């Protein structure tokens, strides 16, 4: 089967790839482009481990086709830090130990980044509902919520 040629922007870089019509964007990122930061926890849109930002919208990349990325702008966890300077959210996740196994972390970071971009001063409840599409089985969410609260606080001040 002939591949579909796609040209898109990922973390600010122009990227071109060929993909099959039934291939998800998650598979393209992971298997074709080597961007394995986004994880597959379910493949059905239920866990958020594959979260990315597509044209300023938080999406599950397992529910987007690779071909749909044509001409769009993609942000993944790999693009969050500037050089060796971690994003405030990344730093706060480390400081608060908001990860145990860490498999959910890329998804949470992306979802939290999207949340804070839209609501820089969220209440605890807004954080909890804003991150309700991301599953974490290790932490009980307590430290994740605190990390996001702390990051919001710092980012507001900045």
């Amino acid at each position: 089967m002939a591949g579909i040629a796609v040209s898109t922007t990922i973390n600010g870089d122009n990227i071109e790839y060929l993909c099959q019509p039934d291939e998800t964007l998650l598979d393209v990122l992971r298997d074709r482009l080597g961007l394995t930061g986004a994880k597959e926890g379910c493949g059905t849109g239920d866990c958020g481990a594959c979260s990315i930002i597509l044209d300023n919208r938080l999406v599950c990349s397992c529910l987007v086709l690779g071909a749909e990325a044509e001409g769009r702008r993609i942000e993944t966890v790999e693009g969050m830090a500037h050089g060796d300077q971690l994003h405030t959210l990344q730093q706060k996740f480390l400081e608060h130990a908001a990860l145990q196994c860490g498999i959910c972390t890329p998804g949470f970071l992306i979802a939290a980044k999207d949340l804070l971009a839209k609501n820089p001063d969220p209440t605890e409840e807004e954080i909890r509902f804003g991150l309700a599409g991301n599953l974490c089985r290790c932490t009980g969410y307590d430290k994740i919520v605190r990390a996001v609260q702390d990051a919001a606080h710092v980012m507001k001040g900045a």
Partner: protein
Amino acid sequence: MNFDPRFSGRKFASVGTRPIRPDGVDKVTGRARYGADFNMAGQLVGRVLRSPHAHAKILKIDTSKAEKLAGVKAVITAKDLPDLTGGDAAMYDILDNCMARTKALYDGHAVAAVAAIDARTARQALKLIEVEYEILPHVTDVDEAMQHHAPLINDTIFTEGLEEKPVKPSNVTKRSQFGHGDVHQGFGHADFIVERSFKTEQTHQGYIEPHACVASVSSDGTAELWVCTQGHFVYRQHCAQLLGMEASKLRVTSSEIGGGFGGKTHVWAEPVALALSRKAGRPVKLVMTRDEVFRASGPTSATSIDVKIGARKDGTITAAEATLRYSAGPYAGSWAEIGAMTAFACYKLDNVKTVGYEVLVNRPKTAAYRAPSAPMAAFAVESAVDELAKELGMDPVDFRIKNAAQEGTRSSYGPVYGPIGIGPTLEAVKNHPHMKAPLKKNQGRGMACGFWFNFGGQTCVDLNIGMDGSVSLAVGTVDVGGSRASLSLVAAEELGIDYAQLKAVVADTSSLGYNDMTDGSRGTFSSSMATISAARNAIKILRERAAQMWDISVDDVVWEQGHAVAKGDKHGNLGKLSLKEIAAESGKTGGPIAGHSELVADGAGVSFATHICDIEVDPETGSTRVIRYTVVQDAGKAVHPTYVEGQYQGGAAQGIGWALNEEYIYGKDGRLQNAGFLDYRIPVCSDLPMIDTQILEIPNPNHPYGVRGVGETSIVPPLAAIANAVSNAAGVRMTHIPMSPPRILAAIEAERGG
């Protein structure tokens, strides 16, 4: 090399602090490599064909069409995994579970597998494999499976542990019994007796990372396996045994692990991937889908438990008895046995008896799930304890304090306790502000206790000191949630150096001696013990080298705060030598400096926790909300308190899911109906409040720093604590978990109607 593991009270410099974990940056930048994040050149995609039937004879498998499909490089069935287990029944069960041999025993049981050039070809190939089944009657319910007329899952099983060997096979593989005293007499002395039956449904560990591995078998008989596992050394042994390889020829590297909770202690896909690779002559990557994780990988037992407890008016328990039935899936296990051991472990009892029954059902092979078997037993016992307190008119905390086990108590499962934390956790709960906080309408408060043994086991650590004075620590227990940070703290403590001077890694099976799994809450307990021992061995060498540099006797050199110090007036002007200075000279003083340790970590130190929670119940819909939650648990010594809190919170959250939502739902056809995160709903962020924690530190006498395992106990009390809270809020005793809205509503309506 005489290592003394006994607790010695000491002042800590590093242990007890909260530095950032050494693997942290990789995990927040997406760089950390988990099971599915690894690839090899020329790798194929593996896929497994699974039985759609709960119980069926496999009459014929025709793989010829699949083999002919372009791009398919190997197709395997049980024939490609011949039985090399040599009469080892447990290994044979593992083999049969990896690939069904004569019968499919549950919906999702593997029957064949393919390796192809890409995922699409592999999927197509599965559709071309023709399996002829003869469908057999099935049973999925634990109580039904015990009936005489129940379909027999394995006709070679005769119940073990009965006085007389039974003449007929049955689904009950084993009866086990624990206790002491005379319960009959004890109940005779009771003024109040509570007797109740309880049920819990089957849940899954629910790790977010599906099982994943990459296997590469060479034609020279060596192989490599990259895999997410809680125990790569054990995986190596199992895989080598099942494939007929020498263990040392199989190098297993554990990837970062995306959650396990006991579920990644068993091989499923790995022997299959190795067999595919062997047949195809190329590396094979095998990743389970979420559907496969639910249908085929290890859920916990479903249970049915009867409890009877009697007490005198003054609140003394006179007798306690329980019968516990645990489903094991289609293979024998020791799940009920563990349940029977833990059931009454929190209490000081003169008369106690527990009986466990292991029951075969047509469900996936039961796997460990965090303090396996203990939460269900605690749910039943702690519910009955609460009810009894109510009948006595006693405060539930006071009633438990009065009967709590202490140092010197003979436990219900046999051993006599050393210093333990059940009493202190109860006292802490009694004094906790949470217990006094006001409740609103439709809200109820519950509390409950939990116990877990904790394990130790075989452990091996290498500590290597570089010429620049930096230290690398190679451990063999997989890091499931921050243990590299904890072990670095322990090494820093013992060597007297800075945490930043160290780097801990998890070594592969060819680089370090054998280590047991990271299970039984043993990771930090046992590897910290081995780390301390390795560091002490390194210090001995460091002292020798310093003595050599100074040209004095090693007996005059002591190790203090990261430095060799010459002792005694005659060496007054020698000053100190830092670890760095000694390391820099190592090439001239005898070569590399290292400390090794191989030991069996004994005396893991039992662990207790008490939880409090407030639940709001909507009496119109039966829906619930967790309002507040507090965990109090003994850690012995919290090496990295933040990660200890994390273990407490994570266990509580899993318990909350189990108590309120999670369950395997089987149809009449024996098929699993909710094999996905949409229908098997684990708690999300908006379901939970903050989870408060209080760490108690009652030193474990069998560890130099007093450490106890902390990972598992936190999932033991929640089922009961929440059931007690819901029962108090709804005004009716809840006896069936999960307490989903329909169950709560039905209980409320039955109470109203009755």
